């Protein structure tokens, strides 16, 4: 065998080897590419799902809010509407009695004994009508209730405004006492019937820079969860206080069932839920967690089975300025 032939075989082997290597590596690359693409696709799908779920919870919160506020407005609307109509009737009766009185007076002034004689029964009747009806006193009472009811409606609408900024992403300074009150109005129909609400709000609470609509959602979620934890009856306590370190603390406590140790570590996980299918998306607390984090804050939970649960949210006064951030 000549040297040349040997060389040829060596070169051939090398070329074949290289080609094989290249082919294998390209195959590996292709496999990697496929895996990567699949992973990306999966990620995109997951993100879509989550965005969809977040959107769904937003819509659910909106629906809940509309139902709540509609219910709250209904009561004052009911008596205001009725009262206005009744006052109208009372005034009509009063008007008739006054007209009778005036016609009696005309008879008196028309002169003569005959006029007086005719006037007497008319005046007596007008007097009876005016005194027995109490129309004016009643009307005044009813109108006072109307004003009262309209004030209630105005407050409800004002609270609604805070919630209407659902998609406004800008930050603003907010009084968290007001945010809590607004959230409370919105879930009032869940809470009011059997649950006692205690508000321990610190006066002159420092205002917090935040995305108000997002914090509203946090409080709405926490209050709504608390209400649901107390199926039948109990006390819901909302506390706010300013911390010396320059932060604000909001606590939502219920006297409900408590959270079992087994599931406690998972309550902030997305899609974790203890509710029946269809009742909850399982995104409530994970969104709460996400929003609080985004505000540079923290959330803690303290719970005891059969006694209740407290969620405490601590928020820095201004999360956009890390230096001012609370410890």
């Amino acid at each position: 065998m000549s040297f040349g032939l040997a060389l040829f075989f060596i070169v051939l082997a090398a070329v074949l080897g290289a080609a094989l290597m290249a082919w294998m590596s390209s195959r590996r690359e292709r496999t990697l590419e496929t895996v990567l693409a699949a992973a990306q696709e999966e990620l995109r799908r997951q993100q879509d799902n989550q965005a969809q779920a977040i959107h769904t919870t937003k819509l659910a919160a909106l629906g809940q809010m509309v139902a709540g506020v509609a219910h709250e407005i209904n009561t004052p609307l009911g008596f205001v509407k009725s009262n206005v109509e009744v006052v109208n009737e009372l005034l009509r009766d009063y008007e008739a009695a006054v007209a009778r009185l005036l016609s009696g007076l005309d008879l008196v002034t028309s002169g003569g004994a005959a006029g007086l004689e005719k006037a007497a029964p008319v005046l007596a009747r007008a007097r009876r009508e005016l005194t027995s009806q109490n129309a004016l006193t009643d009307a005044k009472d009813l109108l006072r209730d109307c004003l009262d009811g309209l004030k209630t409606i105005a407050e409800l609408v004002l609270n609604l405004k805070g919630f209407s900024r659902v998609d406004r992403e800008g930050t603003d300074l907010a009084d968290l006492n007001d945010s809590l009150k607004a959230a409370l109005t919105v879930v009032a129909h869940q809470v009011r019937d059997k649950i006692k609400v205690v508000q321990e709000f610190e006066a002159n609470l420092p205002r917090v820079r935040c995305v108000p609509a997002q914090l509203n959602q946090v409080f709405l979620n926490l209050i709504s969860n608390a209400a649901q934890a107390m199926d039948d009856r109990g006390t819901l306590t909302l506390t706010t206080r300013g911390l010396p370190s320059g932060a604000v603390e909001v606590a939502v406590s219920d006297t409900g069932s408590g959270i079992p140790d087994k599931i406690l570590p998972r309550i902030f996980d997305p899609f974790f839920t203890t509710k029946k299918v269809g009742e909850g998306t399982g995104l409530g607390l994970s969104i709460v967690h996400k929003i609080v984090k985004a505000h540079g804050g923290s959330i803690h939970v303290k719970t005891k089975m059969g006694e209740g649960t407290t969620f405490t949210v601590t928020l820095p006064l201004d999360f956009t300025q890390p230096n001012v951030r609370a410890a």
Partner: protein
Amino acid sequence: MEEQNLRIRVLFVDDEERILRALRALFRDADVFTTSNPKEAPKLARDHDVDVVVCDQRMPEVLGVDVLREVRHVAPRAIRILLTGYADLKAVLSSVNEGEVYRFVNKPWDNAELRELVHQAGLIARETPALAPEPVPEKEQDTARGEVGILVIADDPLTTQRLREILESFYRVQFAITIDRALQVLEQFEAGVVICDIELAQGDVTPFVKALKQHHPHLQTIAITDRADAQLAVDLVNEGQVFRLLLKPVRLGSCRLAVDAAIAQYWKLRRNPTALRRFTAQPAGGDKPASGGLSESLLNRIKQLPARIAGITRFD
């Protein structure tokens, strides 16, 4: 004196004082009692022998449904009306099935309508005796089961099959899958109870149910629906005086209870036909006829069905 007696006595129950003041002013021509403490309501209704009780549904601690159920026992003569903010199905179902309310009124109410409704209810309560709330004795109930016919109108095979299993060996039942067939049955067979699936293939049968009750108030209707629609339920009661409401899938226990109660009701009414006025369906809102959507010929057939309650007709 005569005029004093004509003033109806009405009790309003609501946790909101301002609502009570508004109602008191609205009903200044009646003898009005009010309480914001629902627990007092049954006693007040009994002590003052009121004709009508109007009760709010959503109050702290107690639901209106529960108050009215209690009122039904201690003051059976009083006609019960439930005021609801926004109707939730659960409340409507239990107030129909347990409280046997006369009408639902939505908040905010219409003054003229509420006044008319309460006065009319007051007159009915004055003029017609109430049926005793006590159940019919078991032995009599057995006789009634054997005598009072039941007509089932349903075309969904699952529901029909279910009802056959539940009813056939205990009651005298006839089945119909269309309204036309149902009328044929009613023309020949004395039915005291009509069980009707509201969603037949031929379309919404609520106008039929309403017209049937309007012209034959002795018939006790049990409506079956799978629509979780509170307003539909409210309409069925207000305009159709439906006796019981069942949700699909029909359950053995609740179905038997409802049918037995309906038979007992029919039985009591047969003994005491003057009480019928309490259960008469009226067309909704003034001049709108309850027959809305029914053809003239169908309506005529409904009107011409033999009215059997006055005399007792025997089954063949």
